[in-house]
């Protein structure tokens, strides 16, 4: 590239404090970065700015929109759609907790107990990624069908009485209730919890467990005092990877829920693609982004792992 390249390489090893000459030009990093970063600026950052400006515009589809700094849109959107906001956060939080409870044993199993089955189990966790998630979500309609074996079993055990009383299901149905939506969300984002958990569990030195056992710690104490604290990075990134996309998801609420289980993603989608009220839609998606950023920042501060993200 530059004249440096043609210079013969040093025949004797350079002195320790002397760094080998850089063979690439000073501008190389910028040329490498340029196309990709330009792509992200034009199609990721700039659209965000556009959306911010859209949210303070007024007008109509026929006459066109103008920026009028009409901040009332935010207030109107929030006062009309706060139930959907609350529901999104509640569903996403429940799904995240369930993912953690379900995912931890499996990640632990793969990391410490699977032995020669480890690779096979890993494949079975990752492979569903390659099957369309919409098809798999639709399969839940079959699994949770009215009068199906799952609903039948829950009915026999009188579980549905309790969940209906709690407002999670309604009567003999699971489909079209909050429980179905949370079940779908949990299912869809479970791998995003398992993989970071597994990564951080796998790094733990097994001898630490032996040492704790030698010091007369019961298995439960070993878990509480050694394993779990050391897996915190995985817990934090897993919960973030589950919670953030689950809050904005509208597929599960549409396919498995009903009109009463609409999440904020459903509202944004219908405002954008059906009602064509762009300012409201833009304001809603901005509020969602801000809320998520605030919650995530708070969570990261609380968990004290700022350097991990």
């Amino acid at each position, binding site marked *: 590239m530059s004249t440096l390249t043609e210079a013969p390489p040093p025949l004797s090893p350079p002195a320790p404090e002397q760094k080998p000459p850089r063979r690439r030009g000073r501008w190389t990093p910028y040329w490498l970065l340029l196309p990709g970063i330009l792509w*992200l600026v034009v199609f990721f950052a700039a659209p965000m700015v556009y959306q911010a400006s859209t949210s303070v515009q007024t007008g109509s589809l026929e006459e066109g929109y103008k920026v009028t700094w009409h901040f009332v849109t935010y207030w109107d959107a929030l006062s009309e759609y706060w139930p959907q906001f609350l529901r999104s956060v509640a569903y996403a939080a429940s799904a995240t907790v369930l993912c953690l409870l379900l995912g931890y044993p499996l990640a632990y199993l793969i990391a410490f*107990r699977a032995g020669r089955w480890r690779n096979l189990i890993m494949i*079975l966790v990752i492979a569903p990624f390659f099957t369309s998630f919409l098809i798999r979500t639709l399969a839940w309609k079959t699994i949770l*069908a009215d009068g199906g074996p799952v609903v039948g079993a829950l009915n026999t055990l009188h579980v549905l009485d309790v969940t209906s009383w709690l407002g999670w299901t309604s009567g003999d149905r699971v489909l079209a209730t909050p429980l179905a939506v949370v079940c779908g969300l949990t*299912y869809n984002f479970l*791998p995003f919890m398992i993989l970071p958990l597994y990564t951080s569990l796998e790094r733990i030195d097994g001898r630490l467990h032996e040492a704790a056992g030698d010091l007369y710690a019961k298995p439960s104490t070993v878990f509480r005092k050694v394993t779990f604290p050391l897996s915190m990075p995985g817990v934090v990134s897993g919960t973030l990877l589950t919670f953030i996309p689950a809050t904005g*998801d509208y597929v599960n609420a549409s396919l498995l829920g009903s009109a009463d289980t609409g999440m904020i993603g459903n509202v944004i989608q219908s405002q954008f693609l059906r009602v064509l009220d762009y300012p409201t839609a833009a304001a809603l*998606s901005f509020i969602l982004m801000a809320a998520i950023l605030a919650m995530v920042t708070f969570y990261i501060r609380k968990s004290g792992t700022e350097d991990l993200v």
Partner: protein
Amino acid sequence: MAFVNWFKRHVVVIAGLLTLAYLLLPNVVVTVFSFNKPNGRFNYEWQRFSTDAWKDPCGVAGLCGSLSLSLQIALWSTLGATALGTAIAFALVRYRFRARGAINSLIFLPMAMPEVVMAASLLTLFLNMGAQLGFWTILIAHIMFCLSFVVTAVKARVMSMDPRLEQAAQDLYAGPFQTFVRVTLPIAAPGIAAGALLAFALSFDDFIITNFNAGSTVTFPMFVWGSAQRGTPVQINVVGTAMFVIAVLFVLVSMVIGNRRHRRKA
């Protein structure tokens, strides 16, 4: 008492396997129902066994068209995102320069943003520009959201590379191009492959961002979405089953090859 002790010792294994069952249950249902012969429009209830759908996977109007469109888009966005992302990853790991922090956050943000927000803002941009929604807008969007994942995957690999290997190559009179092709690229290849595979899977499966920016173009996930309202044909389950089987086989084969190479080295 013996049972209680046994249960206590294996509680993690049992819980883990139950989670695995939860993860795989829909795949089992999809596979079983690909052999169903439904009476009505909806394929939600088991009627009777039949291999009709497997014999005629393209028998539903629009299904194979949307499938091939999705494959094309996934292929092109994989190529685009992998090329752009690999370059960024190398620049970030190998060079010190200004604005690294800003660039790192620009890479991180698309992964931390809910998909609806990205989808909606990209749509506002396209509407403002008066762009024709379709193949190109989908491709642009897919390259955009796959890029960060490729950068992360490649970065992890390049970071663990020993720079002395490249120095050694140069000491042996290899030019910069030769060093890159014969030394750097082969070592970075697993990271690049992982990034590309991830990009392909993400693009092929994406629904939310595509739904916003596709206009009237129908990709495979959008076809599935549409059919969920009209009545899902059995062929959709056939495609779902085939994809799962192909994915498992692909990973198994690549693992066997990797093992063999490993053994040869040892």
